[in-house]
């Protein structure tokens, strides 16, 4: 792990290095200032890398290190665990702490030994309690952080994806370490203010904790703006959405400039590709936007008000299958594209149309936050004559709103992004107008009814 850590540390850019230094600086500066590093990192700029490497260094440089790595969602916490595992951390170094109900989802996974579950401390054996005390890094959600703070008395607290964390949640989390004998050794916030926002009906609860602090104090955060993840064409779409969100554009690092599925090691068997999908799957078209207006039918509604558009689901599933049957990696394994939608109902329907090996890659945008994938297909599911797009549209003035889901979804793709939506429904909404108008290198095509087995 040490060699890998050194290698990763050497690869960091200047701003990333400075972010890590300030995380390790401790909270009490000799000049009497309180040190609270806030690291703003748009997609692909390595903010989770900063968090994980800072933690790794902290662990290495301290005798009895304790780190509480907290995320807003279970998905983000799982992603953080993966990042630690990728760096070579063992279950003696890092543990993900969950409730017993949640554990059922992980107990059969290959990483189940990285998980520990309890609802009440009395359920833990002495051995489990010792394990929780001796493991330096504990990962949990903010809501579940009590389970961590019962065993860590002086943790370095890192909060990832702070864009989703309202001040109310931040301060309520701090209340869990309020006992006088507990004294955290530092606090850090990592996130992108433009990603998935605080979800609330109350305007005054909407600013996230980063914005809350910065609006109260004279404060300048660390800003990471060099992205390493996306092909420039995909980054162009992401920058169009960032412009719609009224924020600065990202620059692409040289290492990502030629990032295609081919450069990532996938070979494409063009001859096996259904003729109607050749342009869509062509690795030289990293960004494809498909208008699903010609597909028959409208959106429908499922439990909880979730939406689904059956024919768009069918098309997304067919394209996913086409990818997996025509792209293969160096070991001959098929490419498993990731299918995203903001709607659970659409996800459920697409999954039911996919073969078993692809079903696990069909997830909501929320589940995808913090992750990156070689190939992403997005299905927005809305199609109605009233052009209603619900939370995908703009909220109030200056409000990022749930529409940031579009931005998050597009920025998950490394080398190939296929976006499906009904132009007639989404046109007139700023994000989608910007996406269509400013993605100069996008291949924009019309879906045909025959693609989903319908014929006039």
């Amino acid at each position: 792990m040490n060699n890998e850590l050194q290698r990763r540390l050497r690869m960091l850019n200047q701003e990333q290095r400075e972010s890590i230094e300030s995380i390790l600086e401790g909270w009490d500066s000799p000049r009497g200032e309180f040190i609270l590093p806030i690291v703003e990192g748009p997609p692909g700029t390595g903010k989770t890398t900063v968090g994980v490497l800072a933690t790794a260094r902290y662990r290495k440089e301290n005798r009895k290190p304790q780190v509480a790595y907290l995320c807003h969602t279970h998905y983000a916490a799982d992603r953080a665990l993966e990042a630690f595992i990728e760096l070579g951390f063992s279950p003696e170094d890092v543990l993900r702490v969950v409730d017993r109900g949640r554990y059922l989802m992980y107990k059969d996974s290959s990483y189940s030994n990285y998980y520990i579950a309890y609802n009440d401390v009395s359920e833990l054996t002495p051995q489990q309690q010792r394990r929780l005390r001796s493991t330096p890094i504990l990962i949990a959600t903010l809501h579940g952080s009590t389970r961590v703070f019962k065993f860590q008395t002086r943790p370095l607290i890192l909060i990832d994806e702070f864009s989703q964390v309202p001040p109310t949640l931040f301060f309520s989390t701090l209340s869990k370490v309020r006992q006088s004998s507990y004294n955290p050794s530092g606090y850090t916030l990592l996130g992108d203010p433009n990603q998935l926002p605080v979800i609330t009906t109350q305007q005054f609860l909407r600013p996230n904790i980063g914005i809350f602090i910065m609006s109260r104090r004279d404060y300048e955060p660390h800003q990471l703006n060099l992205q390493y993840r996306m092909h420039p064409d995909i980054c162009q779409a992401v920058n169009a959405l960032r412009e719609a969100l009224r924020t600065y554009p990202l620059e692409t690092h040289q290492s990502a400039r030629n990032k295609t599925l081919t450069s990532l090691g996938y070979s494409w068997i063009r001859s096996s590709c259904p003729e109607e999908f050749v342009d869509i799957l062509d690795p030289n078209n990293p960004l494809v936007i498909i208008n699903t207006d010609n597909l028959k039918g409208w959106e429908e509604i499922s439990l909880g008000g979730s939406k689904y558009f059956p024919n768009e689901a069918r098309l997304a599933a067919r394209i996913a299958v086409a990818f997996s049957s025509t792209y293969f990696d160096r070991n001959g394994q098929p490419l498993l594209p990731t299918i995203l939608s903001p709607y659970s109902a659409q996800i459920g329907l697409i999954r039911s149309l996919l073969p078993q090996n692809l079903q696990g890659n069909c997830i909501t945008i929320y589940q995808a936050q913090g992750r990156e994938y070689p190939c992403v297909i997005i299905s927005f599911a809305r199609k109605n004559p009233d052009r209603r797009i619900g939370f995908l549209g703009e909220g109030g003035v200056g409000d990022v709103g749930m529409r940031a889901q579009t931005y998050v979804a597009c920025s998950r793709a490394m080398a190939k992004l296929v976006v499906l939506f009904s132009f007639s429904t989404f046109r007139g909404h700023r994000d989608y107008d910007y996406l269509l108008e400013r993605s100069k290198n996008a291949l924009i095509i019309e879906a045909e009814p025959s693609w989903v087995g319908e014929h006039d």
Partner: protein
Amino acid sequence: MTVERHPLPRWRYPRNEVLRNQVFASGRPPFAPFPTVTNLINANLCPVALYHDLIHGIENALVRDDLRTVKRRGELFHNFVAYLKLSIKNGDFELRGDIPSQLSSIQNMFLSFSQSQGFQIYESNDIWRLYVRPWVERKLDNGELQSITSDSQIFFEISVANPHVPFPLENGVRNYPLRGRIDEIDLTQRRIIERTIRGGQEDSSLTFLKDYQIWLLWKILCSLRAEHLPNEWGGIRFEDFEMVVETPHQDFVIFDNQDFVNDTHWAYAWINDISISEVPGVFSEVFENAQCAPENPHTECGHPFINCFPRRYPFPRCRPEIRQTFQPWYRLLLWEQMWKGHLWHYQLLMLDRKELLNLGIIVETNVVSVQDNQIELEIMGGEANTLRGYEYCTVIPYGTVFCGLKLDARLVSTRKNNIVLQLSGILPTISQEAILLLSPDIPAPVMKEPPIFLEKQIQSALFRLKHIGAQNEERAQRRSLLQLLESIFGTRALRRGRR
């Protein structure tokens, strides 16, 4: 309750556009909360207890000991009583021999039941000795358990709710929404039962406010029209049912009481004012009407020295700024709960079936089979596959959304147009035969009740943070959390760190 509060001229129900999601959910809700029986009990105890409930998310005012322990023990007691009675009814457990041997076999049953619920043996023994044994002994002595047969009509944990429960007021009635859960409805013996683990052997009087609690639940039940009740219950006159509060040591019969009616009007007035009133000074009035003082604390209330009269520390110095910042948040978090959760209850009970289906609030299903703790349901007129994205939902295998057995469930899989749910709660302990007996030939609605417990947790945690502190500056300087607060709310400089 002694606090003067005038009955409201009318309860503020959500308008049609709000019910139909045609109004953007934002800001102060244009409707009052959909209260629970617990809210009313807290209001009856003290307006400050209600304030802590609604504003600070602390609802267990009447629990003075460790909340988690009391709740776990109480749940075990309830669940075991249900399990025992249903096991006798279903023939899964037979009472044989004399009373001491019956007691002994029930003890064995309890110990294995409690261990299956995650209790350690020493705690199970405690619970048996303190609560379950005295209750079982009484129920064997009076022959109640022996009288249970396969024909006994007993139902446990029945959720009841009505947006329009009428309470007499002067010459007419005033309607209010109310929801709660009844521990046991015994149609055979014509009684409803509320159980508690509070109350000792020597107590001759009833556990505080339990009479009011069962009376409220009875009022909801009586207010339901035949079409709101399970099919077979249509002709039952619940007005004639006996109300019984059972402690481990005694049973108390409760009677209708005009004082309860007056208390209820006052309670709703407080709930309305604390939640949505725009009149300034409401919160001050709450504290002016507090039912106790530090020198004279309420003997039944768990709040006094934890929440109402806590120790005041001089540090952090920025406490006034923290208080000023946090104060509006509590109510905003309550409004969030009202938009997310309370409105959903209004919708569920005030919209017709077709509208509920169109808005995706329910899907209707038929019970196909029940095996162990899994239930298979056939989706009527919908696409089962679209439900695969959900993890948790609520199903009513028996009854209606007004009065029925509501069970939490986890979606396990779909088979064609069927879904399979893993049930939680006490029902999984009941045999398949029993649940099929329970299932009438009407659609079982599946719902996704929006969770609001996280907002309540945030409210209570914020409230606790407001009370932290240090007695002297040197200690305060060492504690990073206090210094973080000083740097965000006070005068200490805040920086991002090394450049």
